[in-house]
C-alpha cells in the first residue's frame, strides 16, 4: 500500500537525478527517511529514460562505467540482474567519411588518406616539439596534445557545435577536469604490475536492459521500501531561511502550494536557480547574484526518429563532426539494448542537437526539427527520408554546465556564499555546475548524505582530486606500499654524492693497498702494484705514492660514480617519459567522449 508522502522530513533533497537518488538511498540505509522533490514525472533527471509508444530512449546515451568500485557495486546491488554488457561500437563522421572511434591507426590512415595523415602526423610532431607555452584555452590544450591540424579539422567543429562557442573561449581547465586520465604514479603502477581495467572501460560498458530509467526506478523502490519518499510533479518555488539556515522549502504540487520545514537540504538544482530561490527577500549579495546569473547551461534537443527498418548501422552512437550538419551525435538505441524498441523490425534513432535557450534551434517547432533531422539523416547516407514513420521531440534545458572564462572565480563566489548556510549542500552536475558523469555525481550525493549524518566530506574534491574515494579502503595500504616501491625505484640518484662516495672508497682502497706494501717492506717494494704508474702519473709504491694513489683513485671513482648516476637518471627519465606518453595516449583515446 502506498503511503501518502509526508509534508515534513528531516532531510529534503531537491531533484531525483542520479545524485539526489544516491543521497536518498544512502540516507535510508542509515535509517533516515528523506523526501526527494522532483518536478518531473519520472526519476533520473537528465539521465532518465523517456518512453514514446513503447520506444525507450535516453536523453543522450548513458554508459554505466566507472573506475569507482563502490559506485559500480551500488549499481549492481540496486539493479541486481538488470545489466547487460555492451561491446562498444562508435564512429565519427568526418568530411564525408566514417572513422572508427576510439581511433584505430590503420582505419584512420585508410579513411583520411596518406597525404592528410602525413600532414596530421607532422602537425602532431610540431606540437610536441613546439607546443603552446601556456595552456589557457581548450584550443591550446587540445592542439598541444593532438597537433593543430587534427584539432582544427577534427575537434574544433564538434566542440564548437556542442558548446555553442569557439574553442578559444573555452578555458583549458575544463579539458583538464574532464580528461583526468592516469596519473604518472598509476601509469607506472600499471606498467609494472599490469592493469586492463582502463582499456576495457573504453571497449565495453554496462547498460540497464531497458535503459537507465530502470536503474532509477529501482532506486525509488529501494528508497520507498525503507521509508523514504520521492514526490514527483513537485516543483520547488522558494527557500525560506533565517540566520544562514534553511528553514523551509516552498513547494507546488499540481495547484496545491505548501511549505515543508527542513533540517537539512540537499540540492541538485542548477546553481543560478538555487540562488534565485534564496533571494526572494533580496538578501543575496549583488556579487553572488551576478555570478549566479552568468552561469550558463547548454540545452539538448533530442529528435527521436522511428524508422521502418530493422537495422541501419552497427554503432551505438555516431559523432557528427562535419560543420555542415547541425546534428552533433546520433544514438541508435536498439544497439544499446534490443529491449529499447518494442518492434524488432523497426529502429529508433536519437538525433542530438545542442542549443542555447532562445536560439534558432530551440525556437524551432517540433515539426521543423523533425524535418531537419530526417533530412540530415538522409544527407549522411544513413537512411532514406521516407523510412521515417514517426518522430518525437524532447527538449532538455540545462543539460550541460558551460565553462566559460572566469567561471571558476564565479563558482567560488557562489560556493563561498552557499557554504555560509549550515544545513545546505549542493550536489550533482547542475548543483555544482560541474560536468561530472553519473558516477561522480552519485558520489557527491552519497557524501552529502554522510555529511548529514556527521561526516565532513568535501564534495568539491570529488572528480577534482583524481583518486578521491575512487578506491576501496582495503586497497589503500597496498597502494601506499606500491607507491613507496615506485618512488624508491624511480627516484633520482644524487650524482655528486655517488661520485664522492665512490671516489672516497676507491681512493681509500688504493691508499691502503699501497701503504700495506710499504709497511710490509722488502727488497723491491710492490713491483706489480708499481705498474699503476702507467695510468697514475707520478705514482710509486711509497708513502707519498699512497697519497697520489688516493688522489687518482678518488678522481676516477668520482668520475665513474657521477657518470653512472647521470646515465641511470637519464634512462629512468626516458622510461618515465615513455610511460607518461603511453598513459596520455590511453587517456586521450576516447577524448571525444569527454567533450
Amino acid at each position, binding site marked *: 500500500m502506498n503511503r501518502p508522502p509526508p509534508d515534513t522530513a528531516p532531510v529534503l533533497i531537491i531533484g531525483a537525478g542520479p545524485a539526489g537518488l544516491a543521497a536518498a538511498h544512502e540516507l535510508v540505509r542509515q535509517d533516515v527517511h528523506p523526501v526527494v522533490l522532483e518536478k518531473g514525472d519520472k526519476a533520473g533527471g537528465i539521465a532518465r529514460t523517456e518512453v514514446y509508444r513503447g520506444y525507450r530512449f535516453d536523453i543522450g546515451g548513458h554508459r554505466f562505467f566507472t573506475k569507482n568500485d563502490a559506485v559500480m557495486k551500488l549499481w549492481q546491488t540496486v539493479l541486481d540482474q538488470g545489466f547487460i554488457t555492451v561491446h562498444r561500437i562508435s564512429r565519427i563522421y568526418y568530411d564525408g567519411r566514417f572513422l572508427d572511434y576510439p581511433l584505430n591507426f590503420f582505419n584512420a590512415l585508410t579513411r583520411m588518406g596518406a597525404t592528410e595523415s602525413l600532414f596530421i602526423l607532422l602537425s602532431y610532431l610540431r606540437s610536441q616539439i613546439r607546443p603552446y*607555452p601556456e*595552456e589557457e584555452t581548450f584550443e591550446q590544450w587540445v592542439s598541444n596534445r593532438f597537433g593543430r591540424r587534427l584539432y582544427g579539422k577534427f575537434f574544433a567543429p564538434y566542440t564548437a557545435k556542442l558548446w555553442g562557442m569557439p574553442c578559444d573561449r573555452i578555458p583549458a581547465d575544463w579539458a583538464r577536469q574532464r580528461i583526468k586520465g592516469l596519473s604518472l604514479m598509476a601509469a607506472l603502477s600499471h606498467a609494472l604490475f599490469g592493469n586492463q581495467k582502463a582499456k576495457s572501460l573504453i571497449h565495453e560498458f554496462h547498460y540497464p536492459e531497458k535503459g537507465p530509467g530502470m536503474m532509477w526506478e529501482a532506486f525509488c523502490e529501494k528508497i520507498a521500501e525503507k521509508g523514504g519518499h520521492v514526490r514527483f510533479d513537485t516543483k520547488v518555488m522558494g527557500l525560506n531561511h533565517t540566520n544562514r539556515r534553511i528553514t523551509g522549502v516552498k513547494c507546488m504540487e499540481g495547484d496545491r502550494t505548501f511549505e515543508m520545514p527542513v533540517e537539512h537540504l540537499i540540492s541538485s538544482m542548477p546553481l543560478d536557480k538555487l540562488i534565485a530561490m534564496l533571494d526572494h527577500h533580496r538578501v543575496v549579495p549583488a556579487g553572488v547574484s551576478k555570478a549566479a546569473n552568468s552561469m550558463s547551461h547548454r540545452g539538448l534537443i533530442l529528435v527521436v526518429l522511428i524508422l521502418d527498418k530493422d537495422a541501419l548501422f552497427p554503432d551505438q552512437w555516431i559523432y557528427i563532426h562535419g560543420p555542415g550538419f547541425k546534428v552533433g551525435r546520433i544514438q541508435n538505441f536498439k544497439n544499446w539494448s534490443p529491449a529499447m524498441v518494442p518492434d524488432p523490425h523497426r529502429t529508433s534513432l536519437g538525433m542530438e542537437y545542442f542549443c542555447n535557450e532562445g536560439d534558432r534551434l530551440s525556437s524551432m517547432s517540433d515539426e521543423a526539427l523533425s524535418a531537419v533531422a530526417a533530412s540530415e539523416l538522409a544527407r549522411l547516407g544513413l537512411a532514406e527520408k521516407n523510412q521515417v514513420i514517426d518522430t518525437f521531440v524532447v527538449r532538455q534545458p540545462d543539460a550541460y554546465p558551460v565553462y566559460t572564462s572566469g567561471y571558476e572565480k564565479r563558482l567560488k563566489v557562489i560556493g563561498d556564499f552557499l557554504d555560509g548556510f549550515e544545513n545546505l549542500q549542493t550536489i550533482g552536475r547542475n548543483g555544482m555546475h560541474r560536468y561530472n558523469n553519473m558516477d561522480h555525481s552519485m558520489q557527491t550525493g552519497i557524501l552529502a548524505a554522510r555529511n548529514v549524518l556527521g561526516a565532513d566530506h568535501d564534495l568539491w574534491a570529488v572528480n577534482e582530486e583524481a583518486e578521491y574515494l575512487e578506491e576501496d579502503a582495503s586497497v589503500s595500504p597496498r597502494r601506499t606500499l606500491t607507491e613507496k616501491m615506485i618512488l624508491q625505484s624511480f*627516484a633520482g640518484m644524487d650524482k655528486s654524492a*655517488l661520485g*664522492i662516495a665512490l671516489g*672516497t672508497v676507491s681512493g681509500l682502497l688504493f691508499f691502503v693497498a699501497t701503504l700495506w706494501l710499504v709497511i710490509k717492506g722488502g727488497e723491491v717494494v710492490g713491483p706489480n702494484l708499481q705498474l699503476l704508474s702507467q695510468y697514475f702519473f707520478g705514482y710509486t709504491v711509497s708513502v707519498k705514492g699512497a697519497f697520489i694513489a688516493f688522489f687518482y683513485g678518488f678522481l676516477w671513482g668520482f668520475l665513474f660514480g657521477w657518470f653512472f648516476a647521470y646515465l641511470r637518471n637519464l634512462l629512468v*627519465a626516458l622510461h618515465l617519459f615513455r610511460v607518461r606518453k603511453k598513459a596520455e595516449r590511453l587517456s586521450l583515446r576516447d577524448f571525444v567522449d569527454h567533450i
Partner: protein
Amino acid sequence: MKKIVEPVTHETDEITGYVLRLNVKILGLVLALLFGSAIFVATNWLIIKGGEPVGPHLQLLSQYFPGYRVTFGGSLIGFIYGAALGGFAGGLLGWIYNGIVMLKRGEKNSA
C-alpha cells in the same frame, strides 16, 4: 596562469624529485657477495685451466690476503676476504652517499 609543463613536472618531480637513498646493509651484502664470488670463481677458473705454475698473478693477492693461494681451499679463503672487503666497501659507499644526500637536503641523520 598555468604552463603546460606544470602538471607533468609536478608529477615527474613527485617521483624523480625524490632522491634515492641507498640501503647500506643491502649494498654491503651485495658487494660482499660480488667480491667474494669474483675471487672464488677467478681462483677456481685458473685451477680448472691448470698449467705450471697455476695463477702466478692471482697469487699476488696473498700480499693482502694472508693465507690465500690459488687452490680450492684458497678460493674459499679468498671468498671470505673478498666478502669482507666488499661488505666494508659497500657499507662505506652507502654510508657516505646517504650522508652527503642528507647533508645537502639539510636533514638530520636518523640512520
